[in-house]
């Protein structure tokens, strides 16, 4: 197990180096000069322009800039945002809890609905329920997030008035946020109604962000279950006279979960991508919205730092998923 872990972590290093190249190169490929954009439409004189280029180090050769970036990175320094003048690392981790909270709720929503729907669809194969689940999943998968989000806001917040339109908590509440997780901080604040307000603000964005993962998980669960349900040992279990729920719930589901967990792990990347749009619609102060702003403003340090951290998180989650296989299925336990 330890060797496996070391091997996997060793494998992360070249991947991570690759990511630094992409993160560094990507924003520089976009047309638009950060210094000119900083100056705005009022234009800027030549001398001042050179001065600012020099200040940000953009006048040095590109390889030199990259090496400096790597060197700083090794020292845990992601640079300082050109716009807000704050360290990128600090900016990222101020906003990250909001994205994490939303993503966790979205994925929980997707699993809680997707796995049972997939299982039932597999057990009741070719029934109306199965068709309904699969059609809904297809529709959900193809749903443009922006449109879907607005639709839900107009229906549930606008017409029915059941949920708040946007934000993380009602503006009536104002308390310190030591953890950055609104669900936890609202409980810690001890203010009545704060937690309920935080929950109600999470409902719509979680549904919107969780829709695509939900569709993917439901389909994956169904096909994995179908495969497992056809296995000999399931027939044996049934022949033994085990209760159907035990056959499905214990014997089949556990084995079917392996590909499902892989898919859930892969959804982390999807969640980050979806978070960009979901956060924009719901005015959710997370890293997705921050990345978009940074890209528009050509804030090089923020974009390359943000991309790098997101990539690092995705890689870590995938590592965790690999480790989880072993926990679920003893056959894939790794030996030293």
């Amino acid at each position, binding site marked *: 197990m330890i060797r496996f872990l070391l091997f996997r972590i060793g494998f992360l290093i070249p991947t991570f180096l690759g990511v630094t190249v992409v993160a560094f190169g990507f924003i520089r490929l976009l047309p638009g000069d950060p210094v000119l954009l*900083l100056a705005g439409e009022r234009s800027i004189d030549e001398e001042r322009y050179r001065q600012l280029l020099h200040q940000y180090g953009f006048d040095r050769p590109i390889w030199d800039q990259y090496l400096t970036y790597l060197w700083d990175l090794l020292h845990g320094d992601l640079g300082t945002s050109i716009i807000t003048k704050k360290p990128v690392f600090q900016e990222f981790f101020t906003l990250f809890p909001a994205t994490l909270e939303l993503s966790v709720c979205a994925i929980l929503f997707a699993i809680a609905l997707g796995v049972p729907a997939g299982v039932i669809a597999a057990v009741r194969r070719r029934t109306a329920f199965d068709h309904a689940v699969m059609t809904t999943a297809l529709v959900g998968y193809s749903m443009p997030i922006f449109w879907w989000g*607005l639709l839900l806001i107009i229906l549930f917040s606008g017409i029915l*008035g059941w949920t708040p339109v946007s934000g993380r908590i009602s503006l009536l509440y104002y*308390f310190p946020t030591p953890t950055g997780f609104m669900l936890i901080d609202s409980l810690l604040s001890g*203010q009545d109604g704060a937690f309920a*307000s935080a929950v109600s603000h999470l409902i719509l964005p979680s549904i919107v962000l969780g829709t695509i993962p939900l569709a993917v998980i439901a389909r994956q669960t169904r096909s994995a279950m179908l495969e497992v349900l056809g296995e000999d040992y399931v027939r044996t279990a049934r022949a033994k006279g085990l209760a159907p729920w035990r056959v499905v719930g214990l014997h089949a589901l556990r084995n079917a979960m392996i590909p499902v967990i892989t898919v859930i792990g892969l959804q982390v990347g999807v969640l980050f991508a979806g978070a960009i749009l979901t956060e924009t619609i719901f005015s959710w102060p997370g890293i997705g919205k921050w990345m978009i702003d940074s890209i528009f403003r050509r804030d090089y340090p923020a974009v390359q730092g943000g991309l790098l951290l997101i990539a690092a998180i995705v890689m870590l989650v995938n590592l965790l998923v690999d480790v989880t296989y072993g926990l679920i299925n003893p056959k894939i336990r790794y030996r030293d």
Partner: protein
Amino acid sequence: MLRTKRVMAATFGLSLLAMASAGAEAKTLVYCSEGSPEGFDPALYTAGTTFDASSKPVYNRLVEFERGTTNVIPGLAESWEVSDDGTEYTFHLRKGVKFHTTDFFTPSRELNADDVIFSFMRQLDGENPYFDYAGGSWEYFNAMSMPDLIKDIEKVDDYTVKFVLTRPEAPMLANLAMDFASIFSKEYADKLMEDGKPELLNQQPLGTGPFQFVAYQKDAVIRYKANPDYWDGKQPIDDLVFAITTDPAVRYQKLKANECQVAPYPNPADIEAMKNDPDLNVMEQEGLNVGYLAYNTQKAPFDKVEVRKALNMAINKEAILDAVFQGAGRVAKNPIPPTMWSYNEKVEDDAYDPEAAKAMLDEAGVSDLKMKIWAMPVQRPYNPNARRMAELIQSDWAKVGVDAEIVSYEWGEYLKRSKEVDRDGAVLLGWTGDNGDPDNFLAVLLGCDGVGGANRAQWCYEPFDKLIQEAKILSDKDKRAELYREAQVVFKEQAPWATIAHSVVFMPMRKSVSGYKMDPLGSHRFDGVDIAQ
């Protein structure tokens, strides 16, 4: 159901509100702002969103723009004198002005001349410890030529400051009302420097303004409370909250749900529905901008006034407004917008008359004219769709026998090439004002100095230039206005541009909000605003 929930939440939240402001009757106004501020030091940035969150609520200037106008009125300076030669401005500061007392700083003294000098010297003097802080890019200060203009700033006594200029410049007063000229507390800045945290000046603003900064939750909420000691009296509302909401459709929903009471920049498509909503009030005003088509007046046949006039008369501006602005625009007849002082109402626009235009062209001996129209590649408030506008002008001109070809370039290239004196063709462009002074339009865009630069018509007409040069050095505003009105008449006779449109800005709010005035300069101010609860 929501209402019950909200009432419950309100009840539960009261204890907190009671802390944030005095008493349980606290009046809170929520503004759904369109974006996050870049920081809270207005002199470092140029974006209106940043000014709305920093300079407008938290700071004051020596002089201020009167709410809802571009008139300059006393601010932290109670009065001022300008020397006869127009190069010395002496400001007398208001006494007893208190800086905000917050949980991050308690001032020990009131506003004095040191604060004023610090606020400018940090942008001007390379030796000032704050000159290089936070990147030290004093964009607007530089863009308004302050480093060339300001020779010195002297402290006459604790409440008197003298600005010595290198040349007479009447718009100086208007410049001092701009956001970059906000007055900071030197005491607070010194304290931060001493603590080794100068960057906090850009994160925890502290000024003399109508509202004081409470907290900023990045990309989500900015909280302010009314300054209890404001020199102009406490504001009618107690708490001001900016709920950052980037999507216009969502801002509309929040406005409807009363989650915010004022929300700027609506989708044009939603405006009709908003106007019909009994709970909402939609204010509208011309923006401080102009969209125009500039001929190259140095190239034949556009050097002839009759040719330019004839082409102007052939353009159907009403059709352009319908198609390009979809109602969010007004026909422009002058080069300055109607919200600006000295706007000349009496000027008559060239009537749309293709027949007469054709006759004028024939008379000028111009036939089979072939020319280019330059269409900008970007959207701007003064021109949301330059390509479409160019096509409409092209077809209008075809009716009078002019064959126009539409050209375009990448934006940077467009700006650069259109400046060239021997440029071929008429250029679509526009301008948004900085300081509400007519000089900021007329001299910048049409003065002889601007030829080969911002004067895209390459138009240097002595009678016009004389008027605006004279107006630039006079300090009597009425006399200046007179000269500018005259200049607009000359402009119209000479027609270096086809003036096309001013955009219209819409501002939706709930009917419970009173006292809001739209700012012609495009900012969003909440001093003097009240809310019925």
